[in-house]
């Protein structure tokens, strides 16, 4: 029995050594996903970025991923496991992985970590995010122009700065073209739950919303809007083109591939450093999906002009005068919001009703 055990142990050791030596040649890049890769939205786009790495580097880089990792304690386990498996670079792709990522990174100083949409960093932890609020501005403009009931529904996930920024940006630009517009916000406390997202969309539609914006990851609200027949929607995180040209009239697309390839290259070259990346339409990290013909031609032209102005950085979606919800002044005429305030945004702008949950 003892010899058998020794045999097994040495075999396992040999295998382990073989795996380590193989890993020395290839760079291993890991991804932690909050939803399934087939969600058609957020995780789907991150996984497209992963596939782009495989395409770009071929055999020189190996990628691994784990999907549907819940935010919180289980995330720490999943990230640790990936680091133990020999990943050199790990992308953790949801806000709720922020503290788990920082904790695991402290234990694996030689592994590089990249956390999406958060704000904490370390010597081996970078942040990256996209300025989705630029896309929200375009959505708000189209929504404000096209709504007839003046009731715009918004399916929000968690009360974090990224989501609040999106609500504020969409509202400001809808209000700018339609002073009577009203936003009703449902917090569903999930990134991905098609049934709950469908229920939320239906609740909004039954109460009279004719535009439904979503900050959740599945296409369920699109299907609900399609069934209703006279409600418009926008693709979230991914193009969701299968619901075009109506109800989906445009979309925000997250294009992570160039960033993922650049960061992987940095690890391969040994030049990786902690960075804070927050890119928008200008670098192509945020793309606006095709605006369909369901949108009137003049509205479409205005929307495209706005996209162009943001691409050339002439226009910032948060340009004063803007007041906070309580009426106090936030930005004076012509002032532009600084990134620090935007990254920590925890207030509604003037005109939005209801409270932000804690």
């Amino acid at each position, binding site marked *: 029995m003892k010899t058998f055990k020794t045999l097994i142990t040495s075999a396992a050791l040999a295998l382990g050594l073989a795996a380590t030596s193989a890993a020395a040649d290839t760079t291993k890049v890991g991804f932690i996903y909050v*939803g399934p890769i*087939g*969600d058609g939205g957020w995780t789907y786009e991150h996984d497209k970025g992963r596939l782009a790495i495989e395409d770009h580097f071929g055999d020189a880089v190996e990628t691994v991923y784990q999907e549907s990792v819940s935010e919180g304690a289980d995330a720490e386990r999943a990230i640790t496991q990936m680091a133990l498996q020999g990943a050199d670079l790990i992308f953790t792709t949801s806000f709720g992985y922020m503290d788990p990522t920082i904790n695991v990174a402290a234990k694996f100083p030689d592994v590089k970590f990249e956390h999406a949409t958060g704000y904490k960093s370390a010597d081996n932890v970078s942040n990256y995010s996209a300025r989705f609020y630029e896309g929200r501005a375009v959505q708000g403009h189209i929504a404000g122009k096209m709504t007839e009931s003046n009731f715009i529904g918004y399916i929000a996930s968690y009360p974090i700065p990224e989501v609040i920024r999106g609500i504020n940006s969409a509202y400001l630009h809808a209000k700018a073209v339609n002073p009577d517009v009203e936003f009703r916000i449902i917090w569903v406390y*999930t990134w991905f739950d098609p*049934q709950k997202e469908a229920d939320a969309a239906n*609740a*909004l539609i*039954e109460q*009279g919303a004719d535009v439904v914006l979503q900050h959740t990851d599945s296409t369920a609200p699109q299907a609900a809007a399609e069934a209703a027949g006279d409600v418009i929607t926008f693709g979230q995180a991914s193009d969701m083109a299968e619901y075009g040209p109506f109800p989906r009239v445009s979309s925000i697309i997250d294009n992570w591939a160039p960033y993922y390839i650049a960061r992987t290259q940095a690890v391969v070259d040994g030049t990786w450093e902690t960075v804070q990346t927050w890119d928008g339409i200008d670098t192509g990290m945020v793309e606006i999906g095709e605006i369909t013909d369901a949108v009137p031609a003049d509205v479409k032209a205005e929307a495209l002009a706005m996209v162009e102005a943001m691409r050339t950085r002439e226009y910032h979606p948060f340009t004063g005068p803007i007041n906070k919800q309580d009426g106090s002044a936030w930005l004076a005429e012509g002032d532009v919001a600084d990134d620090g305030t935007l990254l920590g945004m925890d207030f509604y702008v003037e005109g939005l009703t209801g409270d932000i949950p804690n």
Partner: protein
Amino acid sequence: MDLSSINPALLFASLLVASTPILLAALGELVVERAGVLNLGVEGMMITGAICGFVIAVNTENPALGFIAATLGGAALSLVFAALTQLALANQVASGLALTLFGLGLSSLMGQGYVGIKPPPTPKIDFGLLSDLPFIGPILFSHDLIVYLGLALVAAIWAALKYTRIGLILRAVGENHDAAHALGYKVVRVRVAAILFGGACAGLGGAYISLVRVPQWTDGMTAGTGWIALALVVFASWKAGRVLIGAWLFGGITVLQLNLQAAGVAIPVEYLNMSPYVIAILVLVIMSADKTRAPASLGRIFHASD
């Protein structure tokens, strides 16, 4: 705050639709547990049913065939569990958890190529004039067959367990499998049949999500419904009527709280989001104060030699 924007008739109608998947899955699990088997694979069987139903409905353009395929798919997956626990005498908890993981993976594999496709619409039953009745019409007479099937199943399972010989045998097997065996009942056969029934119900509930409620295919789309159904069976003290109450409470409050948010009611969102779980559990726990208990042989392995 504007409560007038909530239409109570539409709300009740949504309640019936929202509670159907949980109701079907929980009813199936109730029968399984009354036979003394704990199958934690409900989530896996649901999602397998969801994709089987979706694939067949899309390819045949016939939702009815899709629902039939879903029951078969769910039952087929439960057969794996039956083989493991009833023939190989494996641990039921571990086998059930494995079944969920297997079902999630299998459905994801089967669903490749079905993302973004729209299923054929499931027709609502035509009740003629009845559907036009004010208030009652939209609530009671505006649904598809599966909603009514779920309600009929509640009555059927309740009556079968209480009044029929089959129900008596099933309960005997669940309460004391050694005694049932001594009386000459085929314990393993009864349990396998119950497991298959549970799988079929879970599959049907899953297909209701992918073909009616959402309706589309997305990986992992059941998103925990199977686990809620499992909890519901326990809190409902293994009684069909209470499962219905629990499913309605859970589905109804879920829909209601979303509607309250949309109407801008000034209740903190955190409480609203908790409410379906808290209220459904609270009500059922209070109701279960009447000394009902789990089937005595629940989760125990049976072998004729013991």
